[in-house]
């Protein structure tokens, strides 16, 4: 098949970027999109041109590196699928694919499609953990955890930290990402003890980092490769309001 890649090129975070089109021929439909980008880069390097910078590491949908917009959608057209799991069979022969980085004030572009997502690390630093030092733990089976609680915790814990939720949100809100960690830890007895402080500290940091507010568009849930439900945002809001109410 043939496709045209229309790719965002930006040489560094301060420069102005632009789209550049690259026609691609003899594309194998079983190739992944990143393998097509690899092929294009090889061509550019051999011609002495600057290759395209993009983040992609595990290529099995779990490391969370590969956030890009494809035709205006975070991670492209497939539901619950990260960009690295997109194969060319998901596109039509002759199609033009517009590829650009995740856009958010809190995610400065490093170069081309690569972005700086360190704001998400800082949200976790604000309280996205259980305060336990190595060696303090008691026997793992001492406290029973219902299958249901485990299931709900795991659903939230599955977040891969890619930032698609933020890129897809009209307000660039990090509510799904932040809510997922708050909900995961709150549903387990080990994490619950610190829930009150955690929610205040993480939400405050989220605001300080320049992420917007949630206004219930739910586009985050639609694009999340890990299938995180907006229920986690409800969990976060409930805990937050309880704390504010205590005032």
């Amino acid at each position, binding site marked *: 098949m043939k496709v045209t890649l229309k790719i965002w090129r930006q040489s560094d975070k301060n420069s102005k970027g632009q789209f550049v089109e690259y026609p691609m021929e003899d594309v194998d439909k079983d190739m992944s999109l990143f393998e097509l980008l690899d092929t294009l880069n090889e061509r550019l*390097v051999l011609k002495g041109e600057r290759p395209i910078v993009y983040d992609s590491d595990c290529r099995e949908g779990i490391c969370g590196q590969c956030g890009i917009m494809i035709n205006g959608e975070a991670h492209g057209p497939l539901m619950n699928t990260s960009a690295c799991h997109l194969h060319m069979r998901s596109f039509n022969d002759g199609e033009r694919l517009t590829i650009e980085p995740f856009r958010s004030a809190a995610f400065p572009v490093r170069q081309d499609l690569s972005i700086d997502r360190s704001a998400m690390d800082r949200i976790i630093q604000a309280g996205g953990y259980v305060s336990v030092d190595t060696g303090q733990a008691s026997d793992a089976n001492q406290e029973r955890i219902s299958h249901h609680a485990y299931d709900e915790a795991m659903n939230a814990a599955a977040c891969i930290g890619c930032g698609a939720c933020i890129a897809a949100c009209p307000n660039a809100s990090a509510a799904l990402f932040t809510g997922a960690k708050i909900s995961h830890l709150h549903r387990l007895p080990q994490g619950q003890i610190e829930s009150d402080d955690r929610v205040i500290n993480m939400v405050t940091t989220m605001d300080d980092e320049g992420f917007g507010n949630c206004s219930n568009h739910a586009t985050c849930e639609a694009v999340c490769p890990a299938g995180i439900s907006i229920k986690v945002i409800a969990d976060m809001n409930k805990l937050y309001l309880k704390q504010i109410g205590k005032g």
Partner: protein
Amino acid sequence: MNKRLSSDKVPPGPLEKKWAYYKANCKLVSPGNRKKYHIIVVGTGLAGASAAASLGEMGFKVSCFTFHDSARRAHSVAAQGGVNAAKNYKNDGDSVYRMFFDTIKGGDFRAREANVYRLAECSMSLIDQAVAQGVPFARDYGGYLDNRSFGGVQVSRTFYARGQTGQQLLLGSYQALMRQVSKGSTTVYTRHEMLDIITIDDEAHGIIARHLDTGELETHYADAVIIASGGYGKIYYLSTLAMACNASAVWRAYKKGAMMGAPSWIQFHPTSLPQTGTHQSKLTLMSESLRNDGRIWVPSQKNDERQPQDIPESDRNYYLERRYPSYGNLAPRDISSRAARHEIEGGYGVGPMKNAVYLDFKDAIQNKGMAYIKDRYGNLFDMYNKITGRNPYKEPMMISPSAHFTMGGLWVDYELMTNVRGLFAIGEANFSDHGANRLGANSLLQACVDGYFIIPYTLPNYLAGKSNTHRKQEIEKAGEACKQAIQDEIRRLTQIEGSKTADQFHRELGQILYKYCGLSRTAEGLKEGILAIKALRAEFDQSLIIPKNIHSINTELEKAMRVKDYLELAELMCLDAMNRHESCGAHFREEYQTEEGEALRQDEAFSYVPVWCMDDSGDHHLLKETLNYEFVSMTERSYK
């Protein structure tokens, strides 16, 4: 060449008391003095993050380096199936000793007893630790922790978090690390790649790291350095590893005097997805846990063109169940991979490239129901569907062996210290616990145990006993020289101006290694392999092309440096494989096999760990760590 192997430092006493003895007698650094020591950790995977967090909690000043944009991305994240622990929660006869024995036997009696026993001993604390961090391990309906079985054992000791155990354990250690960052004990340098170790007289004093965004070379001094940079299976290009996994930290430590243990012992995972075309950049792994319920088979007739559903039971060869009745589809990885290769090379392979075998869930779905299979393996089945476009609920999966885990790595003593003083290696980066073959769900365990439970004892023991023989001036001079050498190397690579990309070289190297130093090896093949690698190295020096910018992001330069290290390491792997006139674990020499085609060890001549070192002129020399089995007797490794 007058290098000697340092002592293995195994404590005296009976096996089950060695670690307790060590802990009771090691030197300590008092709480008030800990912040005076600076420790560098290279890598933020499970081993690196757990070590950094634990040392930070104790009060040491820690700096952690990763080339990723966040400490949550390392490839530990991709381990699916689980983590082993001898909790015996299932009351099925498990114990620390049994787990130790399974691991020693799984490694084909080529690992140090004391280390392996300690791994099993610490396994239980790891489960406690992870649960306390909020790692959501699977629970049964009574609320207790659930377990499953992995290859090479007859008990259920594998704890899991759906098919995302590695991710959840990594996030646990990442969160512990982020907690230390917020407390100020630890600094994480993201987008930094370590390029050299600063040493004086075989003592580590820091590292040179390149900031990947600015290209700046930074010198960081420290009292001790821990390498936790993972394995180098990506040397085969097509592997289950992530694109940026590399051997550079390990290899550069080797070139600075650390030694390499068994570099050719590499595990090929039996259940990865087969290659489908030349464009392919990696082979995705499907968790071994699938073998709990899936049955592996090939058609009994060669080149059978029928769809799998149309092949009746009588025309199917369930070769693992047939050859290994007591372990069946859960035979260890090396044996399963070799058996698959045997069928594929015999002409029974399936799929478009005839390079795969079937993993069939038809019987399990019939006997246990669709809901059970969905609950246990749902995300793995979805992943299979996403990658291949096929539905494994309706037709069998196609799987094939792929380069996966490196048992080999930096040689370490009982304290996990290399023979360079103050340079430690943990997790997959070292050679220690797995011998010649690693059992499933032991890699997450080893990474965690090294980082959480061993380093916090052995590293302070080193610091407390250290005499500051080198003056600051002397150390800084060594640092400057190191930095200059890296600068020259980078300049040289950008000035080759050839016509072949780093990836092109990498792919060719991978083909050479699969052919000559892969699932099976011969003396003759290895000789050819070494010649081919040497030729490729010479071509690399003449024909590499990369962009010339060095003060901004240059992903091709990053790749080129990794490939350069791979080309050098590949030769040592072949040397190591050639030297070993026996088959053991994952190392299979065709000259040494039983009549049934099983690995044939040569215990008299080869009961040792090959330990390689490099002399000043760049030649490799072999030293031997003799393996004295005091507590178990070596037996033929049978899974029949």
